[in-house]
């Protein structure tokens, strides 16, 4: 298995109690909560922590894109990727991913990835995502056209990477007379494309298509959903007439290890609960703007509201997710190296997954605990997985 280290780069100094006066840590949380001096320190810390992954033996590091939120400080993940390229020599740098529909001209994304690919001599992995619902509020891009724009932008970027330019692009959302990338991509035919997703059948079908075979990475999901989605991907590949390579299947989850179960839970609890309850606060109107998801999914939400008899998930409505509950669901892996390893191995046995993305910094977890977590995971869990 390949093991990658990932952080969302949350803004840890956030005044969480005060932030609760706002409906979300996304879109509407005033940026006066951000202190540039403390923030600069955050960037420095996070880049240091990720850069250490190389000497610890990881196969790669991951960054990702989120906008206008304390949940993650990487609206431009390629800037962090660029810094990490300079700090590492061997490992993969995965940008998981860029949100294609959110930009006016996808060629900018094709160009930036091509630059990173050259600068790293072929070490980048290009993640393609749609961005989450809240980002259609913060960027004003119409969610109704999210899927269409994603697919057209993808087709345009891959063609720009693989077809000699200049050529014209005559599309529905993008129209360009000259597509002619300078630089060309370093990896041939193009950098690996990964599709991180929480899993919809349409995404799985699209990623597994024999013409693409894009690795599918299940993020932030309960164990049962991870197994279900990876199995669906594998089944989809079989329907297409081929067997999925383990490298096509991935899982990303928060992980914390310590000498004893109790110590691991005590050290991870506050940070994990902050991630799920304070940074990941998204009322459905933000999470699922019309068109971002299918009509059926939106109808289900309306039906759920009806069933539970409330008109929304505003502040104070949602019940807190506890560490125990998240562990029970298998959304987070917290324990001794032995028990955490056993949990990952179990999912691997069920799914044959070949990529595991460990989120070893999460929520408010400080540098010291993150460093200890990374080191222990790298020395006591990772070698067993890499040997599989």
């Amino acid at each position, binding site marked *: 298995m390949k093991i990658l280290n990932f952080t969302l780069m949350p803004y840890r100094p956030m005044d969480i109690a005060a932030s609760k006066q706002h409906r979300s840590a996304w*879109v*509407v949380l005033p940026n006066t909560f951000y202190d540039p001096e403390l923030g600069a320190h955050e960037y420095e810390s996070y880049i240091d922590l990720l850069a250490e992954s190389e000497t610890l033996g990881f196969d790669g590091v991951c960054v990702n894109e989120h906008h206008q939120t304390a949940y993650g400080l990487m609206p431009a993940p390629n800037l962090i990727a660029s810094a990490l390229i300079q700090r590492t020599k061997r490992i993969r740098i995965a940008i998981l991913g860029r949100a294609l529909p959110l930009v006016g001209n996808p060629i900018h994304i094709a160009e930036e990835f091509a630059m990173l690919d050259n600068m790293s001599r072929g070490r980048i992995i290009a993640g393609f995502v749609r961005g989450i619902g809240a980002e*259609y*509020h913060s960027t*004003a*891009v*119409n*969610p*109704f*056209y999210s899927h269409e724009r994603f697919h057209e932008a993808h087709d345009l970027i891959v063609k720009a990477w693989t077809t000699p330019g200049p050529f014209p692009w005559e599309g529905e959302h993008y129209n360009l007379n000259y597509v002619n990338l300078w630089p060309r991509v370093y990896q041939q035919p193009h950098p690996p494309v990964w599709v991180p997703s929480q899993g919809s059948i349409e995404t799985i079908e699209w990623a597994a298509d024999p013409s693409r075979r894009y690795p599918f990475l299940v993020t932030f999901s309960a164990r049962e959903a991870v197994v279900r989605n990876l199995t669906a991907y594998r089944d989809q590949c079989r329907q297409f007439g081929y067997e999925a390579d383990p490298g096509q299947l991935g899982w990303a989850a928060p992980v914390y290890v310590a000498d004893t179960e109790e110590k691991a839970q005590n050290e991870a609890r506050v940070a994990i609960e902050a991630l799920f309850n304070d940074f990941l606060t998204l*009322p*459905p*109107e*933000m999470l699922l*703007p*019309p*068109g971002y998801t299918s*009509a059926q999914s*939106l*109808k289900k939400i*309306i*039906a759920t*509201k*009806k069933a539970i008899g409330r*008109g*929304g*998930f*505003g502040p104070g409505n949602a019940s807190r997710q506890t560490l125990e509950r998240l562990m029970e669901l298998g959304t987070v892996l917290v324990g001794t190296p032995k028990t955490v390893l056993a949990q990952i191995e179990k999912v691997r046995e069920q799914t044959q997954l070949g990529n595991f993305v460990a989120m070893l910094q999460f929520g408010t977890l400080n540098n010291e605990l993150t460093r200890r977590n990374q080191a222990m995971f790298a020395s006591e869990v990772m070698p067993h997985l890499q040997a599989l």
Partner: protein
Amino acid sequence: MMNVENRFCQVSGVKVHLRQGGQGRPLLFLHGAGGVMGWSPFFEHLAKGAQVWAPDHPGFGRSDDPGWIKHMPDLAMFYLDFLDQLAPEHGVDVVGHSIGGWLAAEIAVRNSRHVRSLTLMSSAGLRVPGTPMGDIFIWNDEETARHLVFDPAMRAARLAAQPSDEEADVLVRNKFSFAKLAWHPRLFNPDLQKWLHRIQMPTQVIWGDHDGLFPLAYAHHWHQQLPGSSLNIVPDCGHSPINEKPAETAALIHAFIARDAA
């Protein structure tokens, strides 16, 4: 309850669901983002003095959803086809509510041949710089009710409403089509204002005094942009005069049309 005819007609390859009822001059009602959820008291009142036509816009209610209608100008062009095909010789009085008002204005600036008069109610379509409109896409149900409905009892009733399975399908369709037309630029067309001088037919603007989506400044802006228009502010009323003050609103429309007829 008067006799209401529900029928489907075919316009430019699109199947449109149309409700018709009442006696008098033909009146085309262009609904807002919520669609037409039935022959409401407003239509009952309105139909006492007009022959009311209330279609579901393509993408809303029970009408088709053709992929080629991509934005409000497309929808306006579709309705020009609709009017060419169905409007009687002397045209129709057009009444539009919210995005239906926006649509009515987009139709009228393009071609007013079939438009005898124009009533814009709580209308989207323009932006008043410095006066933000409400963000209806980010509000939850409670906030939406609070911003759109003035009367507390009607607000509570709206929140307590339990849509049937069929109604839930329509609500979701309407919501998707609403986003398609109005998400960005949010609830307005930056190009509309510069063409408003083409609206020469009698025009009135109707607005609830407590509209939490488009504050009253929007009513005055429309009124100023349409010289010769009349302005009626409905007291103790939110974004939907048709729901909160159905009799008064229908009476305003009747009086306006009667003035035109005289």
